[in-house]
């Protein structure tokens, strides 16, 4: 409401504000006139009582209308005559703050209905389109400084291994199990590879993440479907390079899946 404050530059907004202030001043003057006229009609006693009441500061009046209890004589006047079991009910005046809130909510309802009917205000699908557009634009801005990684620009960096492991844990262990030892999906730590599409292991992993497996649809094209970004894939590939080339393979005896595919002869 305040962040994208386009309305502050709108002449209609300021014009409306000025008109409303003028109207409030006029209303105030009319109120004073009415008060003066009715005051003159009161008896002296009533005048004094009225002036006493007027002398009470505003917030105290508000507090009183919420919390002050009435005197026993006043109570008799507002006692409602349908009690049972000794439980009686008093017809208290509604507290001013409560009434104020009630009128405000009714007023807001009217404003909201008009706004919703005639503008895009609070339409979830439109708000979503706007949010998407803004986010995609800000991503584009960011990518000016950090261009998206694709298979050509992805490089191995040992710093990415830890984050790659986290992404792997979120997306991959449902099939490839922890540490990539395989289960539903193949063992990623051994020398055998089913799909050899690139010359280096690192790029091959990236290729698989981008395009998915040609023979098994469960290995989805994670990058193309938008589940992970190219940057994330670069990190995952670093992790898989690490568990495949830099750590010992998890053998069948240790719980890993059996080798599948052919011996891969990775360049480096």
């Amino acid at each position, binding site marked *: 409401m305040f962040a994208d404050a386009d309305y502050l530059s709108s002449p209609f907004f300021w014009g409306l504000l000025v008109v409303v202030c003028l109207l409030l001043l006029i209303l105030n003057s009319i109120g004073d006139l009415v008060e003066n006229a009715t005051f003159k009609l009161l008896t002296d006693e009533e005048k004094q009582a009225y002036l006493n009441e007027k002398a009470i500061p505003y917030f105290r009046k508000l507090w009183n209308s919420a919390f002050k209890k009435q005197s026993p004589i006043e109570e008799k006047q507002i006692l*409602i*005559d*349908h009690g049972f079991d000794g439980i009686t009910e008093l*017809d208290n005046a509604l507290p001013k703050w409560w009434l104020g809130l009630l009128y405000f909510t009714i007023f807001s309802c009217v404003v909201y209905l008009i706004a919703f009917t005639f503008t895009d205000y609070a339409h*979830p*699908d439109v*708000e*979503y*389109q706007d*949010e*998407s*557009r803004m*986010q*995609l634009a*800000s*991503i584009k801005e*960011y*990518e000016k400084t*950090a261009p*998206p990684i694709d298979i050509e620009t992805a490089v191995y960096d040992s710093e990415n291994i830890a984050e790659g492991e*986290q*992404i792997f*844990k*979120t*997306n991959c*262990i*449902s*099939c490839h199990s922890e540490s990539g030892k395989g*289960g*539903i999906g193949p063992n990623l730590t051994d020398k055998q590879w089913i799909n050899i599409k690139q010359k280096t292991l690192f790029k091959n992993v990236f290729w698989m993440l981008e395009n998915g497996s040609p023979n098994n*649809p*469960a290995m989805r094209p994670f990058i193309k*479907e*938008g*589940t*992970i*970004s190219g*940057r*994330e894939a670069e990190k995952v590939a670093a992790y898989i390079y690490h568990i495949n080339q830099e750590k010992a393979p998890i053998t069948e005896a240790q719980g890993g899946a059996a080798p599948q595919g052919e011996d891969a002869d990775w360049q480096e």
Partner: protein
Amino acid sequence: MAFGVIYYLVPVMWRTKIWSPKLANWHFWLGTLGIIFYAVPMYIAGFTQGLMWKQFNPDGTLVYKNWLDTVTAILPYFKMRFLGGLFYLGGAVLMVINVYKTIKFGSFQKDVPTEAAALAKVGTSRRQGEGWHVWLERTPHLLSIFAFVAIAIGGLVEIVPTLTIKSNVTQLSSVKPYSPLELEGRDLYVREGCNSCHSQMIRPFRDEVMRFDGKNGQYSKAGEFIYDRPFLWGSKRTGPDLQREGQKNPDSWHFKHMYNPRITSAGSIMPRFPWLITNKLDRTQMTAKVRLMKNTFDVPYTKAEIDSADQWADNQSKAIVKRIYSEATDLKDQMEKERSSKGNAFVPLEDREIIALIAYLQRLGTDIRTTAVKTASIK
């Protein structure tokens, strides 16, 4: 309110005083504290988890991609809620003790013939200057009629338009009815109460679409649910939204996850459902269900589909079992062992409840995927 009523009425009805006012006071404060410890941690948890869900990296990926990270973050609040519940329950136990003792030392007031006091004659002087509200309160029949009319108008205005205007819900041509096996699976989903923790509606928020349907995904459209009777949108996300869960995880993953969620997802707080693995699926009502969907809810099943429902379910369940066995040989071995030990009492995996549930889960959100890739870019 119920507690107040009980504490007031029991002494009156048993013509005595409450056995321990002190215990009653303890109940009051325990109950109050219990409510506070129940509600306030959940407020905090809601904000914490919600803000975590919505965090984006500058490159447009989610910071907390893993659902379980957000759940783990609010576990302390769940524990505080449990404490609140204990307090509240403890207070109620004190009340039971108090009421029991009060009754024991009292004597029950049997029915006494009595009449309501004659309606006070409301004189004209009293009626002078009374507002219409007080007037209406003195005429109960009229008040009831007016109240009913007011509520009826509100109800009709809210409900009738959406019931009668068919074009309110855009039909999506790619959305097809559930297969008979999937219908059974859906009923299992309802029976096990899955929709009390898992929602099935991706709301139009960028982070939500990103989390549950990827960068090019879509939020849930009304037309996707036309064959969901009743809908399972849910109202809480203890666990992630499942509306686009279909084909995200292999069948054997679902098998293991239902058996014990912590096998596949470390740190999960989802309860186990091992009986789904052992129970035989009751298919005696299956064809009747399909027929009911068609006759009562106008779901467009053809006569051929209804007649071949059993065969259809057999084929589908066999295919799922085949996939599970090829993905997870350990499960295949386990089943073999069971078959040899149980002999005639063995229920083949195809006939068990888990297969129906897997069929349903794997179907969720897959209809719209055929068009999802085409409507990828958001303008």
